[in-house]
């Protein structure tokens, strides 16, 4: 009996050891940390072709920003991830925490093709924008008229509006634009949060995930919601007259960026991968699948595709983005004020 147990144990340990042994000991490995969305398309358009080009193995880690940044922080002394794509504000947070390094743009041949706003979004040389998006209001044009961000809080409209929670990526930008509409655009967002708080009983919901909005719009539970352009396409297929607002205060938005982990042992490979992702061909394919709006200005899209994305130099220039430092330094305060005025 004991012999059988020992033999089984030995076999198990050997099997576990074998599982841990790379198929090719010399094979280069690049570990990337990305958002979980559209991974099948990314695999087809970005990951698999790059693996063929570099002759390396790509290890993909997915998750939301908080999880992924927490993991990078935990492995700071011995980084696992070589390259991460995160939001502009998270890139600044990572930079302040000493998790990322300067991006050597001289090794990125496609760098010159990027829109200016994407070249160094935080002005610290630590990140490069690979996609950006506009944030405005999707609304039922047969039920309401939107000329200003403040129109969402009109008595006749508020009870048909879903507002993004302050904890979402769309929350602070939408509040920032409301602040502009109220002529009270202080970094603490106090006035717009109070204005939303005054209408909290009427507002249908403070959404956490934009995916739920399509169903709410379909059921006519809501007529309007501030959304990112990347979620616009499903609304156009609902069969309702839904329009993308062009408020007089303008549109806001956000940008996702690429970063290189501090202490990465595969820095050059990471830069090569970034260069590939920023190439006109890859950015075009990702845009055609309606996954990412291109930050590469050489990407040319049909009008139909462009209508579903945030596209073109003029659009890129017109976006009123919250500076990362403002977002980072005020985030805790925003949540605190929001919980006081809206959350209860």
């Amino acid at each position, binding site marked *: 009996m004991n012999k059988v147990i020992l033999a089984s144990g030995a076999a198990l340990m050997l099997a576990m050891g074998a599982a841990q042994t790379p198929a090719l000991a010399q094979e280069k490995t690049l570990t990337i940390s990305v958002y979980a969305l559209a991974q099948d398309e990314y695999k087809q358009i970005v990951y698999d072709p790059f693996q063929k080009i570099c002759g390396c193995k790509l290890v993909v880690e997915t998750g939301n920003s908080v999880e992924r940044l*927490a993991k990078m922080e935990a492995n700071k002394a011995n980084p696992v991830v070589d390259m991460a794509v995160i939001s502009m504000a998270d890139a600044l947070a990572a930079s302040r925490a000493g998790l990322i390094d300067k991006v050597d743009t001289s090794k990125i041949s496609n760098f010159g093709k990027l829109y200016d706003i994407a070249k160094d979004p935080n002005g610290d040389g630590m990140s490069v924008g690979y996609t950006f998006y506009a944030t405005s209001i999707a609304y039922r044009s047969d039920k309401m008229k939107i000329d200003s961000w403040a129109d969402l809080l009109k008595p006749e409209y508020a*009870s048909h509006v879903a507002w993004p929670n302050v904890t979402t990526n769309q929350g602070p930008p939408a509040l920032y634009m409301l602040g502009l509409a109220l002529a009270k655009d202080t970094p603490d967002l106090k006035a717009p949060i109070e204005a939303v708080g005054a209408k909290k009983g009427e507002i249908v*919901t403070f*959404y956490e995930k934009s995916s739920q909005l399509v169903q*709410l719009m379909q059921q006519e539970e809501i007529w309007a919601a501030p959304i990112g352009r990347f979620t616009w396409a499903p609304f156009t297929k609902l069969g309702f007259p839904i329009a993308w607002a062009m408020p007089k205060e303008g549109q806001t938005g956000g940008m996702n960026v690429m970063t290189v982990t501090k202490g990465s042992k595969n820095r050059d490979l990471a830069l090569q991968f970034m260069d590939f992702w920023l190439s006109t061909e890859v950015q075009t394919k990702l845009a055609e699948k309606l996954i990412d709006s291109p930050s590469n200005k050489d990407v040319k899209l049909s009008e139909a595709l462009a209508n579903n994305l945030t596209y073109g130099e003029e659009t890129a220039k017109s976006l009123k983005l919250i500076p990362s430092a403002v977002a980072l330094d005020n985030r805790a305060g925003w*949540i605190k004020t929001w919980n006081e005025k809206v*959350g*209860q």
Partner: protein
Amino acid sequence: MFQNRAEALALALPAAIFAAAVFLVPVVILLSDGFRVPTGGWTISAYTDFFSNSLNQTVFLRTLRLGAIVTIASAVIGYAAAFAIVSLEPGAKGKVTGLVVLPLMISPVARTYAWIVILGRTGIVNQAFQALGITEAPLRILFSETAIFIGLLQLFLPLMIISLISALENMPKDAIPAARVLGANWFQVFWKVILPLTKEGLVIGGTLVFTGSLTAYITPAILGGSKVLMLETLLYQQVAVSNNFVAASVIAFILIVMSFAANILLKRVATARNKQRSQA
């Protein structure tokens, strides 16, 4: 079955080690975060900070209230349903019990999303109310405590019914006729005969429903959203948005304490009733 206790323990050891490694140790580490001072030592300041915040107080009381209301409502409906089911012929009883269990085989996500369609402004509830002239305009039911209550009740009612069916089947068949012959009305029959004889089922069902209501995440998140925060949705917010594991640890500990307290309380109530009866 086993020649000695050691042999039985040896067989249980791998499972115990596995459970300790992947469940017990991480839970202890997580919960200790709420009491640990980063510079060393122990403190309860995370708990005092948590309860001194008015939002947290509101969320805590709402979670407690909804858990209690869902448990009471499921007990009331559960007794009626279980009583009707045990009164059926054996064949029909099996079929109806199967129907009670059926929703448990469907994902809570699907069951909860169905409520969005049912309770919405254009949903069947509002359509029925307006057709019957009960309301003129659609009611706002979604994203409210009412919506969460309905969702949680539908989610956990089967557990209460099953627990009570089992308890009622173990009750002496002549207990109710005997009470009726002695002049008890139906309320007295329930209060003085059925309830004491089915208390174990009520305790088990009550604990399952209350604990489930406290810890369910999907239903409050979908039907209440961030407009009607519960402890479980607040916990998620603290972890996934604020990266505040200390606050998350505090909330997790509070939820565990609430679950144990509910179980102890229900057992106490049942034991107290037993003592009263034995002294009478």
